[in-house]
C-alpha cells in the first residue's frame, strides 16, 4: 500500500542526513510503527509521506501511485493526519472540526452531517451532546478521539499518526490504544504510526520499523523482533525484559494442555496473556494453574514448563538468549 524507496532528507548541507536512503514497504491494512531514539528520523519519515516535509531524494508510492511530485495539498486530503497535540481548531465546534476535510472536498451538507454523526459514535462520543461543543470543553482523551474522528472523516485509506497518545495520561492511554486498534483494524486502514514507547509499538504494530540515525535497523513483526533482535542496539532498545514482552503477545489458550490441573491450583482465564499468567504462577508459588473458559469451567492446565517451552519454540531463539 505504501512503499518508500531510498527516501532521504538532509536538513543541513554538511550534517548527516535526518533520513538516509530509507526503503520500506507497508502492506494494505497493516499498522507500521516507526520507533527509535530521539532524532532517529521517524517523525521526519512520517511527515514525508504526506509531503509536509519534502524529500531530497527517493520516491514515495501510495496505493501503487508515485506521489513524490504530485500536488501536495490534494495528496493530504486523501491521507488522515493525527498529531500529538491534536491541533483541533479552537474556534470551531466539534462537528465543524470533524467536517473539515469533507468540506474541503465539497461534499454536500447532508452527507457531511451523517458522516459526522457516524464518526462521533464510532469514537464513543454521543453526537447529540458533543456536536456543538468547543474543543476547550474537552479533556485530553476526548480531544484525541475527535482528532482521530477528524482524520477519518473523508475515509482515507491511509493514516499518519505521530505519537497520538503521547500527551494523554497513562491511565487513559491504554484504553484509547485498545479502542483505536479495534476501530482501525475494523476499518482496514493502513497506518504509519510513530512512537517512542516500545510497549505501545508492540501493542499496536503489525510490523515495527526500528530506526536509528536516519536508517532502518530492523523491520519485522513484534514477535520476531523480540525473539531475534538484529543487533545489540535493538536488543537494548526493546528492553532486557523482552522475554516477558514476548510472553505478553501470546495467550494461555495457545499453550495450555487439556489434562486436568493439580488439586488446589489457582485459576487463570484462557484468554489471559502469558505474561500475566506467569505473574500469577509466581505469586502463588506454584508450577501449574487450572485454565478456565469464559463461563468459569475448567478446560485444562497451564504449566510453567509449557510456558518456558513456548519461548523456546524457535531453536535460534534459545541461542540468542
Amino acid at each position, binding site marked *: 500500500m505504501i512503499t518508500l524507496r531510498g527516501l532521504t532528507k538532509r536538513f543541513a548541507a554538511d550534517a548527516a542526513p535526518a533520513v538516509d536512503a530509507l526503503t520500506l514497504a507497508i502492506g494494505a491494512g497493516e499498522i507500521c510503527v516507526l520507533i527509535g531514539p530521539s532524532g532517529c528520523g521517524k517523525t521526519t519519515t512520517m511527515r514525508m509521506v*504526506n509531503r*509536509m516535509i519534502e524529500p531530497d531524494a527517493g520516491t514515495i508510492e501510495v496505493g501503487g501511485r508515485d506521489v513524490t511530485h504530485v500536488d501536495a*495539498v*490534494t*495528496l*493530504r*486530503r*486523501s*491521507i488522515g*493526519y493525527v*498529531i500529538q*497535540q*491534536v*491541533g*483541533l*481548531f*479552537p*474556534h*470551531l*465546534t466539534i462537528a465543524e472540526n470533524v467536517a*473539515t*476535510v469533507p468540506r*474541503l472536498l465539497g461534499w454536500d451538507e447532508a452527507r457531511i452531517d451523517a458522516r459526522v454523526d457516524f464518526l462521533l459514535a464510532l469514537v464513543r462520543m454521543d453526537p447529540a451532546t458533543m456536536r456543538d461543543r*468547543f*474543543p*476547550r470543553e474537552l479533556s485530553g482523551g476526548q480531544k484525541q478521539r475527535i*482528532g482521530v474522528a*477528524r*482524520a477519518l472523516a473523508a475515509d482515507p485509506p491511509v493514516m*499518519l499518526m505521530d505519537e497520538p497518545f503521547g500527551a494523554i495520561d497513562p491511565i487513559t492511554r491504554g484504553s484509547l490504544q485498545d479502542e483505536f486498534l479495534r476501530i482501525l483494524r475494523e476499518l482496514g486502514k493502513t497506518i504509519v504510526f510513530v512512537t517512542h514507547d516500545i510497549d505501545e509499538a508492540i501493542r499496536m504494530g503489525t510490523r515495527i520499523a526500528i530506526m536509528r540515525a536516519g536508517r532502518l535497523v530492523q523491520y519485522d513483526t513484534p514477535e520476531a523482533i523480540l525473539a531475534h533482535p538484529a543487533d545489540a542496539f535493538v536488543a537494548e532498545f526493546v528492553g532486557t525484559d523482552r522475554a516477558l514482552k514476548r510472553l505478553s503477545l501470546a495467550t494461555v489458550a495457545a499453550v495450555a494442555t487439556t489434562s486436568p490441573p493439580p488439586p488446589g491450583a489457582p485459576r487463570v482465564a484462557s484468554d489471559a496473556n502469558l505474561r500475566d499468567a506467569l505473574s500469577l504462577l509466581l505469586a502463588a508459588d506454584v508450577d501449574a494453574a487450572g485454565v478456565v473458559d469464559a463461563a468459569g469451567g475448567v478446560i485444562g492446565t497451564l504449566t510453567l514448563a509449557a510456558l518456558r517451552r513456548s519461548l523456546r519454540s524457535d531453536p535460534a531463539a534459545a541461542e540468542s538468549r
Partner: protein
Amino acid sequence: MFVDAWQYLLLHRAQFATAFGVHVTISASALLLAAAIAIPAGVFAARKAGAALAAINIANIGRTLPSLAVLALVLPLLGTGFAPSLVALTLLALPPILTHTIAGLQGVEADVVDAARGMGMTPSQVLRQIETPLAIPVVFAGLRTAAVQVVSGAVLAAFIGGGGLGDFITAGIAMMAMPQLLVGAIPVTLLSLSTDYLFGTLERRLTPRGIR
C-alpha cells in the same frame, strides 16, 4: 462655568459641527489608511521570522516617539493643513496595528496550523479559515489602541492646521477662555471614550465563540 461653555457652544454651533466633523473624518481616515498598510504588512511579516522581528523593532521605536514630535516633524516637510495631519496621524497609528497583527498571527498555535496544513488546506485556506478568525481578537485590540491614539493625536493636529476639536482647546488656552476650552475638551473626551467603547464591543463581537 459649564453654563458659559454651553452658551458658547450654542453660539458657535456651525463651527463646532465642522470641527467635530473634521476630527472624526481625519481620525477615521488615518485609522483606515494605517490598517490598510499595517495589516497586510503584518500578515506578510508574520510568516518570516526575520521580517517579523524587524517589523516589531521598527514599530516599537515608532511607538515611543512622542505624538506631538511626529506631528511637528511633518510640518517643515509637508506644511500645514489636513493632508500633512493625516500623514502624521497615519504614521502614529501604524505601530500598534502592525505589532498586534504580527502577534495575533504568531499567537495561533503551531499545532493547529500544522493540523490544518496536514489535512490538505492550501496556504490561503489556512489563512482565511484558521489563522484569521483566531488572530482577529488580537488584531482588533490593536485597532482599538490605534483608534484611541489617533483621536487623541488629532487634537494635537490643531497645532499644524489639521482642524478638529483641538482648535477650540488651543484657542481656549491661548486666550484663557474657559468656555471655549471646555467646548473642545469635553466633547473630544467623550469622543475618545466612545471610540474605545465601540472598538471594545467590536472586539468582543468578532471573537469566535469557541475562544471567548
